[in-house]
Structure formats: C-alpha cells, structure tokens
C-alpha cells in the first residue's frame, strides 16, 4: 500500500499537467473575482455586499453558484489521473502484487484527496489576493467557523472526487467520464431529483445528495448543519470508496 502510494505520489508530484491545472484555476478564480467587482449589484434585504464579506461568506457564496468550477476541475483531474494510467496499461506491471488491486484504488483515493487539498489551498490564495486587489480587503472572519467550513467542504469535495473516480473506473473512457463529471458538477442530477421529490412528497431527502449539500449554504455554527455536512461527506466517501475497491478487485483488466 505504502509503496503504491509512493509511486502514485511520485507520478502526481512530477506531473506538470497538475501544476498547469492549479495555475489555470488560480487565474480563472481571480478573473472571476474581478468580474464580481465589475458587476457588483446593489443587494436586496438580507444579503451582504461582497466587499463586506469575510472569507467564509465569500467561499459559501462562490460555492453556491453553479456551475461549480472547483468541482469541474476535480472531476477532470480525477478522470485524467486514472485514465492516463489505465490507457498506458502501466498497472499491468504491478497488479500481480499481493492486494495490488485494492491498494492501487486506495492510493488513487488518497491522491485525489491531496489534489482536492491543493485546490482548496490554491482557492484560498486566489480569493485572498483577488479580494484584496479588487475589494480592498481580505478578512477571514471567525477562525473557528472558517476552519469548520473548510474541513466540511473539503470532505464533500473529496467525496465528489471519489464518485467521479468510481464513474471513470466503470466507464473506462475519458470523454464520456468527463461529461458525466461535468453534469454532476452542474448539479443537474441534484436539481432534477429535488424537483421530482417536491412533486411527489414534502420530504427533502434530495438535500442530502452530495452536490446539493455542497451548493446549499450552511451555517456551520448550527450543529444540525454540521452534522448534515459531515455525515453526507463521510457516507459518500465510504460508500463510493468501497464500490471502487470492490469493482477493481473483480475487474477483468485489459
């Protein structure tokens, strides 16, 4: 396990495309903030001006807007990282090792976690620079709240990466998998499920779908909201990790 992880990590860290991804993301994120400044609207009751927002509020505002760019980057990277190895057939060289099938999936999952972490760090850097450039402030706000928000959203995004990993493992083709990833990022599925549910009952189970949980603005001072976020994240993380490992163990490899 450790050795396979080391191998994936070497491949991940020496991969120029990963850094290009992060740079492009920074650039677009700052450009997005610049556009917010250009088109800042006078707000309606109950909302706050972007220039008054702290980082927690800013992140929540950005994540609530679909399409979620950060989800798209994660989706595309997950597909890329898996497919580049799958297409090359490189796995054939190590898959006969004991438990290599399970371990290689676990290692992919960890790498996607690291990539998600990098995305969050880069997002914070871009936000803070962008906000101080265009809104002349970069307040973080309550640090306890900020940390809870980051951890919660990080887990949700990581779980999302694993969902995409599962999809690409089963689809085995890059382009269709990316399309699925983007559809998931646009939350088409969550919105349709929500609409259907509201037609047939007055429950709100679809709010517990992964991407719905990501885009809904939550109050991390409310224990209910924290439980909601953490439980959805952990359940999706575990369920899709287990599906991915089981699938790989049974898979007939090319």
């Amino acid at each position, binding site marked *: 396990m450790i050795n396979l992880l*080391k191998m994936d990590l070497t491949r991940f860290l020496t991969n120029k495309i990963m850094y290009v991804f992060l740079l492009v993301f920074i650039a677009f994120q700052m450009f997005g903030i610049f556009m917010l400044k250009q088109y800042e609207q006078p707000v309606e009751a109950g909302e706050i001006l972007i220039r008054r927002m702290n980082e927690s509020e800013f992140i929540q505002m950005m994540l609530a807007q679909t399409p979620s760019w950060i989800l798209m980057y994660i989706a595309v990277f997950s597909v890329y990282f898996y497919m*580049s190895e799958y297409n090359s057939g490189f796995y054939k060289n*190590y898959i006969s090792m004991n438990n290599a099938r399970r371990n290689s999936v676990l290692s992919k999952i960890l790498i996607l976690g690291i990539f998600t972490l990098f995305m969050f760090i880069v997002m914070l850097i871009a936000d803070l620079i962008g906000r101080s450039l265009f809104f002349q402030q970069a307040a973080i706000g309550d640090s306890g709240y900020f940390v809870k928000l980051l951890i919660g959203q990080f887990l949700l995004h990581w779980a999302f990466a694993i969902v995409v990993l599962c999809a690409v493992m089963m689809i085995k083709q890059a382009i269709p998998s990316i399309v699925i990833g983007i559809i998931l990022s646009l939350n088409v599925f969550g919105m349709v499920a929500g609409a259907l549910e509201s037609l047939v009952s007055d429950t709100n189970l679809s709010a517990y779908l992964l991407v719905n949980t990501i885009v809904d603005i939550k109050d991390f001072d409310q224990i209910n909201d924290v439980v909601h976020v953490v439980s959805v994240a952990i359940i999706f993380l575990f369920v899709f990790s287990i599906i991915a490992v089981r699938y790989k163990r049974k898979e007939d490899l*090319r």
Partner: protein
Amino acid sequence: MSNAIIEVKQLSKQFKSNVAVNNVNFNIRKGDIFGLIGPNGAGKSTLLKMIGGLIYPSSGEIHLFDHTMRENHPYFERMGLLIEEAGIFPHYSAYKNLDLIAISYGIKNRKKHIEQLLELVGLDKSNKTKVKNYSMGMKQRLGIAMALIGSPDVLILDEPINGLDPQGISEIRQLILELNKTGITLIISSHILEELSKVATTYAILHHGKIIEIISKEELLLQCEDRIELEVDDPKMTVLILENHLGIQRYKVIDDHTIYVYETDIETQQIIQSLAENKIFVHSIAKHKQSLEQYFLERTGSSGGADD
C-alpha cells in the same frame, strides 16, 4: 506432475457468447521455456492474462507453485508479465518508467537495479528520450525490463518478437535463453512456430481456444526432420537389413508396417534393392519433408493460419 510450478486444469474463459479459452490443461515445469503457439485470435493473450492474474477464469483452476489461485493471490506476485502491449507511460523516459515500478515494489537501491536491467535488455541507461518515440523493438525490450522488476520466478512474454526485425528477433531470443539460464521459467507466445523453434523446450498449439497438441522440442524436431517413410511387411527383419547391410543407425519403428529412416542422404533405390535381395516386400517408400510452419498449419487448418 509434482515438479510442475504452473498447473492449468480445465481452464476456460468466456466473453459473452465467445469462448476464448476452452477447457485448457497443461503443466509447466521449473526451468521450462513453454511456447504457446496459435494463430491470431486463438486465445493466447486471454490464457496468459488468466495465468498472470489480470483476468479471472470463467471456470477451471490455476495452480502456481502448488497453490490454487483465487483472486488477488500473493503467488501471482512471482510472475513478471509482458502481455499484449508493454504497460509504459509514453511521456516518460525508460528510466522513469522503471523507477516508478521499482518504487511500487519497494525496491531498495533502485538506481543500480534499473541500470542493470537496462543493460541486460540492451537499452542505453542515459537515454532521456520519451518512450513514445521509441521503436517497436525498444519498447519490447523496455517491456521485458519492466516485467523483470521484482525478480520474478516466471516470466510471461506475449508475442515478444512481434514486429521486430530479424536482428531484433535474434537478440530477444538470446536474451530469453540468458534469462532461462539464470533459473527463470518462461512462457512465450507467438503466432509463428518458427520464431520460437530455437528457444522453447515445450510447445503447446492453441487453436480456437483449445490446446490441440503439446509436444516437446525433441519430438517436434523429429517430426519435422526430413525422413524416408518405409512401409514393409516385416519391420523386424527390415531393421536388421537396414543396420547390417546399409549401416543405418537413425531410424524409428512407428508401427507394424512403418519405419522412418532419418538418414536421408541414402538413395531410396538403394534401400529397395537391399530389401528386395533379402526377399522383403516394400509396399511404399517416400521421402518426407515438412517445415515447422507446415506442421503448425496442418494442425490449425491450412487456411493460412490467421482466422480473424
């Protein structure tokens, strides 16, 4: 067979309605070079993938080193695989590709190990070219080096000389023999018998997923050696005359009527004459010539071999 390190029993693999490998049985002993021959689509790669643990059998059993294999069994670890195309990252150099696997095997002293392997397969260790720019032959060599990481006991090479020039072919053959000398058991597949004829110790002919024949190198060479086929009434007498009157040492009595003589420089006329003088009636006599390829095609249907 107790000294078999690989035993395959009733092994089958079905893809939807297509039976790619059908009830295959064989044993491979330690130190063998096992040649698997069959036309394209015969099921060679499918069979090798099952033995290497890449795909799962639909039915049947594989025993490696006296242990029954099920999914993810540790004994697969002692196999080095080069099946179909070599699994290499096209945008990395040979060294980097090898380094990544060496890391995944937890090998200490990677640099030394990799440099030794590159030298063994005849690749330049300071070559920084991306593998995608390699020739077919260089990719195959790299593939073999990759399969050798982790010092396997068994090396599976699927059509290792496919697409190589004659020079490359002879170098890979040399390499195969060298590896075999270090104690590695090899399984090699090919759709051309001739390619393997100089290295393998045992041959299995696979056709439409079934093994049609398993034959040792000696038997095969004997089968394909030029010979005079002689049909007589009294083989016992005939043999005495062949030995005593004509000085023939290399012959084989096939059945009650048939004798094969492998000393083909003798004239058939001479044989007939000697036998007639001793009142032995010759029903027929013919010179028989068969190339390895003919032998193979005869068994896989003479339609030219490739059937897909």
